[in-house]
């Protein structure tokens, strides 16, 4: 596991300019496996996040909390790194840049900060890039194994499920692993696997690179990358005959409409949403409708009390009582 994570880190470094790469290669081996984010800001020290804390990186690769010991990132570093990230082809990533991030091979995402230029059709491009945030994607195979038995209804169907968690608590990771499990099938439950349609609006779930998902999404999964939920729902229902549709980060009124469409077609839904408690969700108008209509039968709450992805509670959707054992 640690070995894999370390290799992932070294692969990500290939997208960073030579000078900074040399420094970042020198950081302690045990830290390499745990790095979650590498942040480069023009004129500021190199900043890395691991285990929820941030550190600066000194010339000799030592992680420090003292900013003055760190190496400063300059404009040339940023522009060279950006060239490597975009594979020397900024023009090929126009659409991605408009959305504020680029996905790398391996499903890692690079967020972009800079001067945003508007054209007649909304954001045109980002110029004078001043900061880059490289988020290292870590696939956690098997994180959903504990919850899967709460979701399965008889061997061959599932409950409509909503995963609720604050940011950075592993909601996307657990959804991704649920998709993989449901799609591959669960021999232990005598389940042969479902046809899963994934609407990956923010390209976070599958991490598509050149049309290939960079994470294991299972054997029976179809993916619409970068597609909005409403269009994606219609496209899936029309011709892909999914048994489950999965989507990340629901919230808007049109998302709720899409979910109604999906239910009308007799297809099951798994979705995630930002939030802490059930009351939290009631305060969001469009979502409270879904909850009152008892559409979701299972609510999975995540937190990070015992590390990222801790399962806080699992609530049954008709009686709103906990069924977590």
């Amino acid at each position: 596991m640690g070995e894999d994570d370390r290799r992932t880190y070294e692969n990500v470094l290939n997208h960073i300019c030579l000078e900074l790469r040399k420094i970042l290669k020198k950081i302690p081996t045990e830290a390499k496996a745990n790095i979650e984010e590498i942040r480069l800001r023009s004129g500021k020290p190199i900043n890395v996040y691991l285990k929820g804390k941030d550190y600066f990186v000194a010339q000799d690769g030592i992680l420090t909390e003292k900013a003055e010991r760190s190496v400063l990132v300059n404009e040339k570093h940023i522009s060279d790194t950006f060239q490597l990230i975009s594979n020397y082809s900024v023009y090929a990533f126009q659409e991605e840049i408009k959305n504020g991030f680029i996905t790398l091979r391996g499903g890692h995402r690079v967020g972009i900060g800079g001067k945003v230029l508007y054209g007649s059709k909304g954001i045109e491009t980002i110029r004078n890039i001043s900061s880059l945030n490289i988020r290292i994607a870590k696939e956690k195979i098997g994180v959903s194994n504990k919850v899967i038995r709460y979701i399965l209804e008889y061997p061959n169907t599932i409950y409509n499920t909503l995963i609720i968690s604050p940011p950075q608590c592993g909601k996307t990771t657990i959804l991704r692993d649920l998709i993989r499990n449901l799609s591959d099938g669960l021999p232990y439950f005598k389940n042969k696997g479902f046809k899963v349609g994934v609407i990956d609006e923010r390209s976070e779930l599958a991490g598509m690179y050149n049309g290939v998902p960079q994470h294991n999404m299972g054997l029976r999964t179809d993916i619409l990358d970068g597609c909005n939920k409403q269009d994606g729902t219609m496209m899936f229902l029309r011709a892909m005959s999914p048994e489950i549709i999965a989507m990340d980060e629901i919230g808007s009124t049109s998302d709720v409409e899409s979910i109604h469409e999906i239910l009308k077609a007799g297809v099951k839904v798994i979705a995630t949403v930002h939030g802490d408690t059930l009351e939290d969700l009631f305060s969001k108008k469009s979502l409270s409708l879904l909850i009152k209509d008892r559409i979701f039968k299972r609510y999975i709450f995540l937190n990070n009390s015992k590390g990222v992805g801790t399962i806080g509670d699992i609530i049954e959707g008709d009686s709103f009582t906990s069924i977590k054992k």
Partner: protein
Amino acid sequence: MGFVKFLGSLLIFSSTTWIGFYYGRKYSNRLRNLIHIEQCIKILETEIVYGATPLPEALTNIYNKGNKKVSFIFQDIRDHLMNSGRGDVFHSFSSVIEPLRDKLNFTEEDIEIFLSLGRVLGSSDRHDQEKNLKLILNQIKFLQDDAKIERDKHEKMFKNLGILTGLAIIIILI
């Protein structure tokens, strides 16, 4: 004796003629290569503006589609780019200055304009790339005109000079 004289004269004549043609040919080579490079950049324009092909792949495509006598330059740039991993396109363009000068007979001015391609390539959106490529293509057109004038002026001169020098040496020696 007469035979040896004849052989010697022939040797002198053919070598001076060859030197003349060699220097003369540089001018027509430059013109031909400028035309080929224009075609290559047009292929590049299509790849970028209509295909949005990533640069390394686009460079390989130029090598395959263009005239190999010139398009090898683009493959060299691609290889340098991928091997160096520096994120600096201009640096990789600079690495081919020598073959541009020696194999393609480009002048300093030609090289300068070709390198300017490396400064802009891949660093902006499609619209901007198109404008920059158009500008460079325009400049290459001017260079071609210049190369044509140079060729007309010098190629014949060097060829004639070669032949005449040969004859002059033979006459003096005989």
